[in-house]
């Protein structure tokens, strides 16, 4: 018990050291790139060409292999950013700040992808590009949040205070996002009695589910890959004059 705790603590301290992170991420990035390409390729090719056609929606439903992973990733990135914000606020770990800074644009892009793919899916199936549905609205708010975090970061010239400011905003956002989600739900039930329901995920058949899971996995790996690369770039930017970086 004590030993596992110690090794965890050790790992945490290593995570806070940028030379260690830079070295390890440099080693792992090629493998992650390979696996993310594999999963994404298998998931999407299987989903688009080999899984059965939906009897209700036809072939249009195949965009699910982009849309659902993107939506899932877009929320997961915010959760990880919240954890990093807590770490950055309490222990002032500079890698946590680098993490938030690098992940926010990635989160914004995947949320944008989820919104775009959702509206492309919605056009043929619901007959409209956009609908003020609870889920769509809260995804849009999430997107605005990512943009606000990115723009807040860019407004600071001092990196250290930028990290802290962004952590504060991320935490306040994390507290507020559930409230926003809930209130949008109430608003939706008040203004628009359930006209469209698209929660058929429980009734999805296994032949469609397997490629979806693989594709979700591939998306997470892509996020990991792009996150690592963005963090490496940020470390290089910040520590370009440090001794270890010159000797790297």
């Amino acid at each position, binding site marked *: 018990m004590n030993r596992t705790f110690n090794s965890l603590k050790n790992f945490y301290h290593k995570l806070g050291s940028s030379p260690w992170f830079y070295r390890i991420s440099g080693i792992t990035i090629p493998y992650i790139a390979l696996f993310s390409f594999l999963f994404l390729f298998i998931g999407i090719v299987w989903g688009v060409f080999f899984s059965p056609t939906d009897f209700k929606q036809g072939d249009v439903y195949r965009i699910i292999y982009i849309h659902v992973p993107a939506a899932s990733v877009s929320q997961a990135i915010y959760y990880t950013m919240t954890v990093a914000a807590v770490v950055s*606020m309490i222990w002032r770990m500079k890698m946590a700040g680098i993490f938030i800074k690098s992940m926010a644009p990635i989160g914004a892009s995947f949320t944008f992808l989820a919104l775009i793919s959702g509206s492309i899916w919605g056009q043929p199936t619901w007959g409209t590009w956009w609908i003020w549905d609870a889920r769509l609205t809260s995804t849009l*708010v999430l997107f*605005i*949040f990512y*943009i*606000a975090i990115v*723009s*807040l970061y860019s*407004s*600071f010239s*001092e990196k*250290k*205070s930028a990290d*802290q*400011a962004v952590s*504060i*905003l991320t*935490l*306040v*956002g994390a*507290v*507020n996002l559930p*409230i*926003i989600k*809930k*209130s*949008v739900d*109430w*608003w939706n039930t*008040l203004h628009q009695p359930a006209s469209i329901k698209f929660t058929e995920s429980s009734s999805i058949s296994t032949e469609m589910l397997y490629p979806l899971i693989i594709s979700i996995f591939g998306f997470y790996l892509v996020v990991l890959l792009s996150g690592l690369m963005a963090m490496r770039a940020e470390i290089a930017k910040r520590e370009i004059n440090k001794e270890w970086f010159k000797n790297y």
Partner: protein
Amino acid sequence: MTNLAKRIFYKELVSYRKRSSTYLSPIVFFLITIALYPLALSNDPADLSFLAPGITWICVLLSTLLSIQNIFNEDFEDGTLDIFFSLRVSTLSLIILKILVNWIFSSLPIIILSSTVIFLLFLPSEGLVILLTSLFLGTPVISLFGALAGALSLGKSSILGPAIVLPLSLPILIMGTSSVTSFLNGENPSFYFLMMLAIFIFLLPLICYACIGALRLHYE
């Protein structure tokens, strides 16, 4: 401590009274935007009375945005904040007082003015009490978010403020308008009032501490 709080409160009141533009511009902005809606949408009283709660709430939200830069900016520029942070007084009470005075000068006049929407936007007069109550409960939360945005974007570009405040204020906007519409539809609006009050109580300590953290960033 209470003596000091009283003095800070008095100082805030005086400094707001001297800068008349800071509390006049939200009022002017509110009246202008209220007048824009009938011109742009329709002058039919039936349409307007249906839209009145939403229009009023949007105008209140936008006009309080004008004042968020004022909460800390002046004190930051002339060095008052430096002194407060170096004094051994509780910064928490200072922040709360500043938000309170800001609310008195930026939101209270607009809340009082918004009772004119029964003439301007033909809001059914029985809905007025509900609208005012929702504004009284909702605008303090918006002031809290405004203070946070003001503290984070101290001396920075002004677009940051709205980008932070508006998405955070969505629940208040929804509940504020829903309370009035549901009352006009014959339902009990107390649910929305209690929710707004709960959000305020929940967020008050959180946002105040976040404000302190954000202000300290500018002194590192």
